[in-house]
């Protein structure tokens, strides 16, 4: 049960976006531009950063749904998502993406945990200003989303099949859900 009265049966941030569309609109716009807008990072890699940070925040709704979206986007290489969520450093992703996920993990603890050597390591592996910027903003934004979703105890489905279907929809992008007509 959510801490406030939201539309019953609507999961996670969708129920909160419908509760207050004025704030829902810029939040969905932000998710869309961060995860689907033009960026040197692939959509799959960006979803993976979102899922990784959400898992570290123990936000079951956000980590399950964005992991599902990342699996859809990685397609044949989808096993990489669960490998990263299990043990990022031992997974088969590129060293550059590992260095960016390492920065995202630092942002999840606190912005001030990100040290010059973390940035230098990413740069040595070829990360650009834009890639570092987008990584930090995705990590920071998902810390906000995770706290928003769990701070109001919004409905978190437990059936993996629900998230699989959600991932398929999320692949096509993010837009504010319309209120249900009564």
């Amino acid at each position: 049960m959510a801490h406030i009265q939201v539309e019953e049966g609507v999961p996670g941030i969708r129920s909160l976006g419908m509760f207050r569309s004025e704030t829902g609109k810029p939040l969905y716009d932000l998710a869309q531009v961060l995860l689907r807008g033009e960026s040197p990072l692939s959509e799959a890699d960006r979803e993976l950063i979102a899922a990784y940070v959400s898992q570290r925040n123990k936000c079951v709704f956000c980590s399950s749904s964005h992991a599902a979206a990342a699996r859809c986007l990685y397609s044949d290489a989808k096993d990489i998502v669960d490998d990263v969520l299990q043990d990022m450093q031992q997974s088969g992703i590129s060293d550059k993406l590992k260095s960016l996920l390492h920065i995202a993990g630092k942002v999840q603890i606190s912005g001030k945990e990100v040290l010059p050597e973390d940035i230098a390591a990413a740069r040595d592996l070829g990360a650009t200003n834009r890639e570092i910027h987008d990584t930090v903003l995705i990590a920071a934004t998902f810390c906000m989303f995770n706290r928003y979703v769990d701070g109001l105890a919004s409905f978190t489905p437990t059936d993996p099949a629900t998230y699989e279907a959600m991932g398929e929809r999320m692949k096509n992008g993010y837009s504010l859900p319309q209120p249900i007509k009564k």
Partner: protein
Amino acid sequence: MAYIDLQNDLPGIRGPMAFRPETAKPLNELAEILLHSENNSLTRGEREMIGAYASSLNDCFFCHNLAVYSGASTTDALTTEMLKQRRYSLFYEGHRWIDMRRYNLLSQLPVDRTGDDVWDKFPLPVTEQ
């Protein structure tokens, strides 16, 4: 020094916002609704206080010191400062004329070509005349 070259030296969140305007737009819209909108049962002061309190717990010096202001505390001086801050925060979002009209300061808006004037109301659509 910022970790990445933001190509500007604006303070705090304004630097990365100018670096990437596509993400700045929804972030600014969110801040505007959460903090500035009058349509809220919490006052604007209370909402800034929540922002400053959370920022201080997050140890973010820029965000929690943003409200510190050392100028005069007369109504005029505070209004001038607030209008200046809104000018930066809401850059290119079309609030300036409405702000100036609200405080009866339209005469301070620049007229940079002879023969131009500053309107004090919106024109009526033809269908409503």
